[in-house]
């Protein structure tokens, strides 16, 4: 157990015994992103928005206003915010069921996301999808998929479509350390490299697949190496440091957009909450979670860097906090007041054609 705890506490650490990587073309080691004042504040805002939104979703779940499964992103905010900063409008994003943060990072209205969680007609999926099944074609967000690992070939397919159309865009495919053991992930790596598809595979390694730690489930627990047998270059990233993530994203995006084929990024991150709202969390200690929050929190880390680096003062960050609080409060009010879908919607959206 000690080994598990230690790994969890050092999310960005690489194994000392890492073997040399394969001798095929690969991007350079990424450098930590150097942000402007505006970029610092934007990343801070986006991470705080996800954090506060998820906390509120957790409360609404506790009140019985959100049903079913609800997987919160708290602790992992740096991953999606760092990645998103390097993407362009028209790029495609796809992930699994822990998707609220990705939607907010894509710029989707918090009200539409929260109203989907409460199952209302104004939800982004008109109340028919729920927490795990949200989409916004307009924002290039292709879900929101409930079957572990299924989004990986789908994401490769989005990349295939970009290449086929020759539109210069790329697909970013997020999945967890648990999904990394699904066979279809490797089928996707193989085809993506074989056909040089413009896809960034992002493993959000939050250390636990539900209650099973990476070490208990993965013979090769350095997940960034998992693509090397397919010649997909892998990079391990400190996923608790948004600037490290953004730097890796920059490197990966350049590589992939340049027609060099896919890249695998392993983000070492951590979720503070349970796997879902119904998780008793017996598989890890309270101390472990607490230590992570105190030492590695992505928002606190960035805040400290902003202030110590003189990029902005406490008051500027407080103003952002207030703005975010208002957005989240408004989204929760909206989601509770908005009407449920009309009964007549039960049979709509099954097929598009009339036969």
């Amino acid at each position, binding site marked *: 157990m000690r080994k598990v705890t230690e790994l969890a506490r050092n999310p960005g650490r690489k194994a000392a015994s890492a073997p040399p990587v394969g001798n095929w073309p690969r991007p350079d080691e990424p450098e930590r992103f150097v942000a402007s004042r505006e970029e610092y504040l934007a990343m801070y805002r986006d991470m705080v928005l996800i954090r506060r939104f998820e906390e509120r979703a957790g409360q609404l779940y506790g009140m019985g206003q959100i049903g079913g499964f609800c997987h919160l992103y708290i602790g992992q905010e740096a991953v999606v915010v760092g990645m998103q900063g390097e993407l362009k409008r028209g790029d495609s994003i796809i992930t699994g069921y822990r998707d609220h943060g990705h939607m907010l990072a894509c710029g989707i209205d918090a009200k539409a996301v929260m109203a989907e969680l409460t199952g209302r007609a104004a939800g982004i999926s008109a109340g028919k999808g729920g927490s795990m099944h949200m989409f916004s074609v307009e924002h290039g967000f292709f879900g929101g998929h409930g079957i572990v690992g299924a989004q990986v070939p789908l994401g490769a397919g989005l990349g295939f479509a970009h290449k086929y*159309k020759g539109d210069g865009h790329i697909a970013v495919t997020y999945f967890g350390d648990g999904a990394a053991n699904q066979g279809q992930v490797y089928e*996707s790596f193989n085809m993506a490299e074989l056909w040089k598809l413009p896809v960034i595979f992002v493993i959000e390694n939050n250390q636990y697949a539900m209650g099973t730690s990476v070490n208990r489930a993965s013979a090769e627990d350095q997940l960034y190496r998992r693509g090397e047998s397919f010649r997909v270059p892998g990079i391990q990233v400190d996923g608790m440091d948004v600037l490290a993530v953004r730097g890796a994203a920059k490197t990966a995006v350049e590589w992939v957009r340049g027609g060099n084929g896919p890249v695998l990024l392993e983000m070492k991150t951590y979720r503070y909450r349970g796997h879902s709202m119904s998780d008793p969390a017996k598989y890890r200690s309270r101390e472990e979670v607490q230590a992570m929050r105190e030492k590695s929190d992505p928002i606190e880390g960035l805040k400290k860097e902003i202030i110590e680096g003189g990029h902005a003062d406490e008051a500027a960050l407080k103003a952002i906090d207030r703005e975010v609080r208002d957005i989240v409060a408004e989204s929760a009010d909206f989601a509770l007041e908005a009407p449920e879908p009309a009964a007549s919607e039960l049979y*709509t959206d099954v097929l598009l054609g009339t036969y």
Partner: protein
Amino acid sequence: MPQILLPAMSPTMEDGTLAKWLVAVGDVVKPGDVIAEIETDKATMELEADDGGTVTALLVPAGSEGVKVGTPIIAIAGEDEAEAPPPAPASARPPAAVPVAAAESKTEAPVAIPASAPETATGPTRRQTVREALRDAMAEEMRTDERVFVMGEEVAEYQGAYKVTQGLLEEFGDKRVIDTPITEIGFAGLGTGAAMGGLKPIVEFMTFNFAMQAIDHVINSAAKTLYMSGGQMRCPIVFRGPNGAASRVGAQHSQNYGPWYASVPGLVVIAPYSADDAKGLLKAAIRSPDPVVFLENELMYGQSFDVPEGDHVVPIGKARIVRAGKDVTLVSYSIGVGVALQAAETLAGQGIDAEVIDLRTLRPMDTATVLESVGKTNRLVVVEEGWPVCSIASEISAVVMEKGFDDLDAPVLRVTNADVPLPYAANLEKLALVKADDVVTAARSVCYR
């Protein structure tokens, strides 16, 4: 004098074309030498000599078409023939590695749709196999819509494991005709993602038996997306390939998935019988904005029908009365339609006038046509090349019981395959598969004759 017989080179091969002789009379051949090229229904294959010797006669001229499996095609005298006693007939055998059993399991010839059938084409037609019709459907749609592409195992360079994609690579290139690794869940998912991304993929499964590895993407990723996204995300994709029993390939390669997919809201499921419907419905499937499962049948690929010329599109969701009758309704789909038509002919000789309906689309199912027919005949037998439990036949029985109860003069009967995994032995396989004789018996029974 030892002869080599034309071997069966695939499980369904019944005859072949002797495309080319690579040896001449008087040539000395060694074991393993290629002596001829044989064109089968699926591919051009090389025939090797089993034993060495001198070619004494070419028994079938090059270019001969429709040479039956088991026909002697060449005579080779052994090297020590002069001294040795004449070899036993058993030595005249096809090459060792080729399965010979297939020749025994003849598939029944297709039963033509009677010219009097209500929906018979009136314009110009041409005789085509189901295989050619499917290929033409894809080629025509690919010519008019850049977004359409084909992917699957062996679809490009090999020209299709069952030759359905023959010639497509040459016309459309490797951007649009894509050989995949053997990776069903991977390419089914990749194709589904490409459809979400705005393309119109045709994903070929070498057979639908292998699609079980990929069924999560067909159902969870493709079929449910539109609904789960509140109508904003489309997934226009066609999953196609042979379905149902082939010939002597055993339980894991012989299964009808029609009832499985037809139970899923969000999918369109098509299972045509004839070449004209295969073409017209595949074109409709490719144009559909919805995910389509298109179930073909290997035993039907080589069967010929009259296919209308031009842009022949058949509407999805409409059954077809392939034989009009007044005494009993026989409903089926895919290869079962041939069984039903055969039974109808026998019944006609016995004074029973059967109406035969080809469902063509399993979802959405045209139950109105079935109910209308039952309203006329008051008797129904459902014929299905598949298992009986939770089948299409079960579904139709339920619908007719619910909505046509007052029209029925007899219970609805189901004639299906036996409720067992398909056996290999020729006699057991025959016993397990749906048969016209059983349809005749059932039809007589509901007519109380």
